[in-house]
């Protein structure tokens, strides 16, 4: 469903990604691993069409996301490392807006119900600029729950979450796995990746060092590379 062909990206003449190619199939849950600054977030931003690659193509259901009309990208959800929501708007307003631009009409009651599951319904009318980092991270799960997506790109899914927040986040991920959703997570947690993801993609030195199914991988090998 997602085909990445020969992606190159550089910033200020410094190459970040070189000749990145891989295919994502329906139901794949991919962990994108690599050291800090290796280009994981950059790759996710390119996949989510936030950033333009210098070279290469990305096909989503056979449509080039950089050439086709925006509607061809319907079903792609990108959740970046930063909050990606408007600080001056309330949680409710942000989610209503996010749903609307993704073409999903949600009733206030369904948004409130999702916020309630994440323990945020009592703060739904507060401007999110006064939210803690963990609450902001939880809001991303609310967003992913409310929008209908076919493929999710999620940068660091457990950042800033406390134990309760992490449990709720994991519950959502389990639900998406159960529904055979397609997901790519950029993460620094090899243990979690091997436990939950079906595939592991390791970036090193601007390239994909390896791309394997997780049941074939020895964790010590990963840890050694990441150190």
């Amino acid at each position, binding site marked *: 469903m997602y085909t990445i062909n020969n992606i190159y990206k550089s910033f200020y003449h410094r190459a970040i990604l070189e000749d990145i190619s891989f295919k994502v199939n329906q139901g794949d849950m991919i962990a994108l691993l690599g050291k800090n600054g290796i280009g994981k977030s950059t790759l996710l931003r390119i996949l989510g069409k936030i950033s333009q690659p210098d070279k290469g193509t990305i096909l989503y259901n056979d449509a080039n996301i950089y050439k086709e009309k*925006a509607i061809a990208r319907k079903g792609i959800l990108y959740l970046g490392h930063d909050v*990606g929501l*408007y*600080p*001056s708007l309330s949680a409710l307003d942000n989610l209503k*807006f996010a749903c609307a631009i993704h073409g999903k009409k949600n009733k206030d009651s369904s948004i409130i119900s999702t916020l309630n599951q994440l323990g945020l319904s009592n703060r739904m009318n507060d401007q999110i600029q006064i939210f803690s980092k963990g609450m902001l991270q939880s809001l991303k799960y609310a967003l992913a729950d409310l929008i209908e997506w076919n493929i999710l790109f999620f940068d660091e899914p457990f950042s800033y979450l406390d134990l309760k927040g992490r449990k709720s986040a994991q519950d959502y991920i389990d639900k998406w796995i159960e529904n055979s959703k397609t997901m790519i997570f950029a993460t620094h947690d090899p243990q979690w990746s091997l436990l939950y993801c079906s595939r592991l993609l390791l970036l090193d030195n601007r390239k994909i060092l390896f791309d394997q199914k997780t049941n074939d991988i020895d964790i010590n090998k990963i840890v050694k590379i990441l150190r």
Partner: protein
Amino acid sequence: MMFYTLVRKDLLLEFRAKEIIIPMFAFGLAIIMIFALSFNASQAINHAFSPGLLWIIILFISSLGLNRMFVLEKEFDAFTLTLAAPVDRGIIFLSKAISGTILLLIAEILIIPPFIIFMNLTIPSDWHIMVLILLIGDLGIMSIGAIVSGLSMRAKLSEMLLPILFFPLVSPHIIACVKSTNYWFKGLSFINWQSWIFLMISFVLVFFLLGFMIFEYITEE
């Protein structure tokens, strides 16, 4: 529908944050006071200079408003929410230009009465023509401004880049706005100065079309 959603979001942001209109009004009022107190001129001189002064004020406050509009998009990397959604970037440009125009018009409604009072002006009775000039003028300013703000928002020193690119690009349009306002103020028949209005409309059309076509490329990293 998507266009309406985006415009509504921009207006809601301002309604909640109050970070655009109030600074525009405060800045505009400060310039009016400086003009009014430093010139200390007769009513005839004020009449001769006021069209130019009015559009200088509008230009300054619009640059302030544009900067804030795009800073609100940069905070929390919120713009990625819109960019990653299946929305044509041309529609994002149109929504920015129109919501900017609405905010600028609101700021002008607040600024023009003190401008008239402090500059001791008498306004012609056909004021609805001036409303038309303001509307076309604001559409032109905001269409050019949205392109330049989109270009500069991802750049280092974007606050400096915006006026450096914006003022030279918008100056022909502003000259047409000043000329139109001047002729209206002098009470000349519209037929004598309609070419300036047509020039303004041309600017609006060209920059709306240009922005719609290139916003896709200028918003990507």
